[in-house]
């Protein structure tokens, strides 16, 4: 009984996420595209929450929906959110080919092996501990330590690169008259 309603909720959220993703690529106005993307991310956070991954859900909202998408909106606001006009071009048709390719890949991936349920001790406190910040932290800092540290170095390099690119010289545009 509970399983059916749970699965219905998961299904509705998944459908909403897919519809929001379609909204991102089909909407003409960049502001609404960004809003659809935020909706997509919120749906994912809710899905994580349904799968008992509380910490990941919070992190998803804080980092992606809260910080990254604000920067997207920031840039759209600075560039002006004018509507894009659809015009046929080579890039457009090649994009469609790429989409079809990706769908084929998705079908292949789905057909590799049937999904398996998680087995083992599934007491409520065990399930609750899976998604906690402690569990995620222990996993990150033990089994995935090298990957984690490499990612942090990559982020540091990106930060230094951004500062180098964005730094402008303070030389006066015009030489001061003598």
């Amino acid at each position, binding site marked *: *009984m*509970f399983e*059916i*309603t749970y699965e219905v909720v998961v299904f509705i959220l998944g459908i909403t996420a897919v519809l929001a993703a379609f909204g991102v690529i089909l909407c003409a106005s960049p*502001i609404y595209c960004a809003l659809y993307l*935020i909706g997509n991310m919120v749906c994912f956070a809710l899905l994580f929450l349904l799968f008992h991954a*509380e*910490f990941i859900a*919070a*992190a998803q*909202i*804080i980092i992606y*929906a*809260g*910080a990254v998408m*604000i*920067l997207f*909106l*920031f840039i*759209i*606001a*600075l560039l002006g*959110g004018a509507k894009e006009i659809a015009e046929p071009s080579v890039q457009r048709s090649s994009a469609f080919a790429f989409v079809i390719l990706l769908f084929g890949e998705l079908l292949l991936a789905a057909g590799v092996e049937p999904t398996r349920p998680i087995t083992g001790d599934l007491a409520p406190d065990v399930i*609750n501990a899976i998604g*906690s*910040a402690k569990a995620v932290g222990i996993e990150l800092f033990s089994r995935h330590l090298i990957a984690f540290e490499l990612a942090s170095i990559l982020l540091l390099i990106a930060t230094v690169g951004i500062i180098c690119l964005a730094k402008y010289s303070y030389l006066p545009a015009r030489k001061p008259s003598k």
Partner: protein
Amino acid sequence: MWDDILQFIDPVLNAGFIISTIKAVVIASALLGIVPALVWLERRLMGRFQVRLGPNRVGPFGFGQPIADSIKLFFKESIIQSSADKFLFHLAPAIVVFTAIVAFSVIPFGESVTVFGEEIGLWGANINSGILFVFAISGMGVYGMVLAGLSSNNKYSLMGGLRSSAQMISYELTLGLSALSVIVLAGSLNLIDLVDSQKTIPFILVQPLAFLLFFIAGVAETNRAPFDLPEAEQELVAGFHTEYTGMKFAMFFMGEYINMVTMSSLVTLLFLGGWNSYGLPLWPILAFAGKVFFLLCVFIWLRSTFPRIRYDRLMTFGWKILLPLCLFNLLVTAVIKVLYFPTGIL
């Protein structure tokens, strides 16, 4: 199909569901009711600070003033200029109020009490990563301001919205990192556990620097003076809500005041020991309310004391002073914790 749905609803309509519904209604209406009281308090206190009387004509001590103001706002004409994006224009104030109320839903304000044989916790929801939830939802509140700035089709609104997003992102880091040093000490993200770990001594005495940083960042997060750059009157008319009138304008104010209450509650929970009264004969809920009230007065006090700081200095202050201090504090706290209190402090 229908049997499934009925079977699902049947156990849902038990005591737990009813209690949660009542809690949600009480918290939301209490928050909305607190706003006019806070506006009155702010105007009276500001009057005192500036050696004048403040509102004192409508009712005793001017108590009727907020009621008169809200009636005025309700009946004002709602003007939307034709070049605005109608949908986003309506959505923006709704986001601000919605996120403000939802963020408060995980704030606990006392230990659980037993009423009619049911144990009722004095909180909306007790979730494991409570403090992360507050940060996540209040971070979503920025969208209200940014969308208000974007949809108004007005350059001053746009600048206000941009400033608010930049300011909120910058100070959210300080807010999160200074809260993290307390979380490291307590070893939990749950707000009730955080309060319980302050039974003997409040964290403000252990982490005075983190308290100061958290409070400064909290003032900046709620867009209060001296950090009210998004709506700097002298340079941006009224910032992101320039084009708003009537009730939609009032909703931005409701969001701001509810955020003030949430921020004061967070400071109380993290640093002032929540509902622990440390020997004073007080009900836990009164101890909590008293601390929050004191912090709200400090918010108003700050507003009437400090001039607004310049935008570039605000950013410099956030990134070059507050953030390094936060990281340093966190590092020292973590080292001390690992070396001397590996099993938990206090």
